[in-house]
């Protein structure tokens, strides 16, 4: 991956939304509250969530350990988590 250092938080968010659009295509991402519980708001289950993490691993090369799942509740959590690791 060569994207790492150039990624801004906006780009990370865009990447996350790009992955989520494949998982929950009908959701309205423009109006998504960045602090809302992602799984609840988008109605995604643990299988979908795992797919999101697989997608992130592929896209930005950040592999989220299982122990950190609990820290990733909202879109902001995800963006900040990834931003700190790319």
């Amino acid at each position, binding site marked *: 991956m060569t994207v790492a250092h150039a990624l801004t938080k906006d780009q990370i968010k865009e990447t996350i939304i790009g992955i989520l659009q*494949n998982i929950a295509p009908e959701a309205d991402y423009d109006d998504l509250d960045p602090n809302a519980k992602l799984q609840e708001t988008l109605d995604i*289950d*643990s*299988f979908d969530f*795992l797919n999101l*993490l697989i997608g992130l*691993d592929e896209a930005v090369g950040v592999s989220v350990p*299982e122990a950190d799942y609990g820290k990733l509740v909202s879109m902001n959590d995800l963006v900040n988590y990834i931003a700190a690791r790319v």
Partner: protein
Amino acid sequence: MAEFKMPSLGADMDAGTLYEWFIKPGATVKRGDVIASVETDKGVIDVECFEEGVVVELAAAAGTRVPVGQTIAILQVAGEPVVAGSGAVTETPPPVPAVEPIPQAELPVAQPQAAVPMGGRLKVSPAAKKLAAELGVDLAQVIGTGSDGSIHLDDIRLAAATATKVARPAETPPVAGAEPRVTPVARRVAEDLGVDLHEAQGTGPHGVVNRIDVEHLAAEKSEAAAPLPAPEPVAEPTPKAAPQPPDFQTAMRRAIALAMARSNREIPHYYLETRIDMTKVLRWLESENVKRSVAERILPVVLLIKATAKGLIEVPDLNGYWRDDHFEASESIHIGFAISLRQGGLVTPAIHDADDKSLDELMVAMRDLITRTRGGRLRSSELMDATITLTSLGDTGVEKVYGVIYPPQVALVGFGKIMDQPWAENGMLGIRPILTATLAGDHRASDGRRGAQFLSALEKFLQEPETL
């Protein structure tokens, strides 16, 4: 000759729309071959052949809605004498009728009685069964001549006497000009956006056109039509053979309603529940997953599937079907796994032979099933042969599930969310991750004691995660 009938892809299906043929007259088919796809309330399902032989005739055209049990194809079953003039022996097979819809009047009249619904039970008397065993005749390949399609002694004798090999013509290519494979949601969106599905590039599994493909196509079209502010979508006239897009949510709701109403009407349910300490199993899973890449991680529900399968080996009374006033135990353990759909509704396709699969294999099988259920398509056997249902609502935060059994199955295992709860052990009170497992059992087929034995076996296996 064998009549291949519209299969019943679940207790709730009364008809299906023949979506696409993958065979044509003259083609050789064997068991397990996907010969057609059928559009049902549960989406497009690949229908597998349960016979071996040569296709003589396609009796229903793509695009036609066919009641369950009506003949859709005629097969020359392997071992049958070749019938003169049938498509099986002609050098050039007759043109495929599948491309043009056959007017309703030309279709064979619906059989009032389905003789042998595919995958359904054969109507055979014990004497006929015995004779078939003696003569080495496969009952699945015998054509019953009884009024209701039941198999008589003479049918068995005939089948045994005519067991000769049929010459097989070369494999024929799939039907040309077939409809694109489209998910139900994509179909609806395409209709809303006025997009011609024939132009869509399917990026889903097996090239299935999904919602995103349709939206991309619509976006491309509207860009191409710029600078007009609101381009009027010009819908291509739908080809005649295209099935009418049904309202899937309504249809699926109705299908679920039928099956569940039947369940509540016919099945005397009993319910049991037990709390299971998940400390060991979660710790074990964590240590396993830490060794794996994200893509190879196993979800906790996979352990529940395996423990359920192992529990059923110990208590087989819960694994099988209630039919004709008696319980038929199943030797195979095919776990119907409840998968919710984003647009609403629920499908419970089977994870085949769950007891024989490793955790990794189960994870792969589950991933495949969820992906195909939500985006691609399922195979008919997956919708027909689940021997029990497992539902996990843990993601929703609910503590326990009281299930409604899917007939003709006789049990449903439900799992809630794993929650930290007070737990007393050895005189000490602590906080443990607790899972509440429930069993809904059919009291005609089993009693509470058997059900309790199953839950206790389940609990035992979850305390020994390394053996799963």
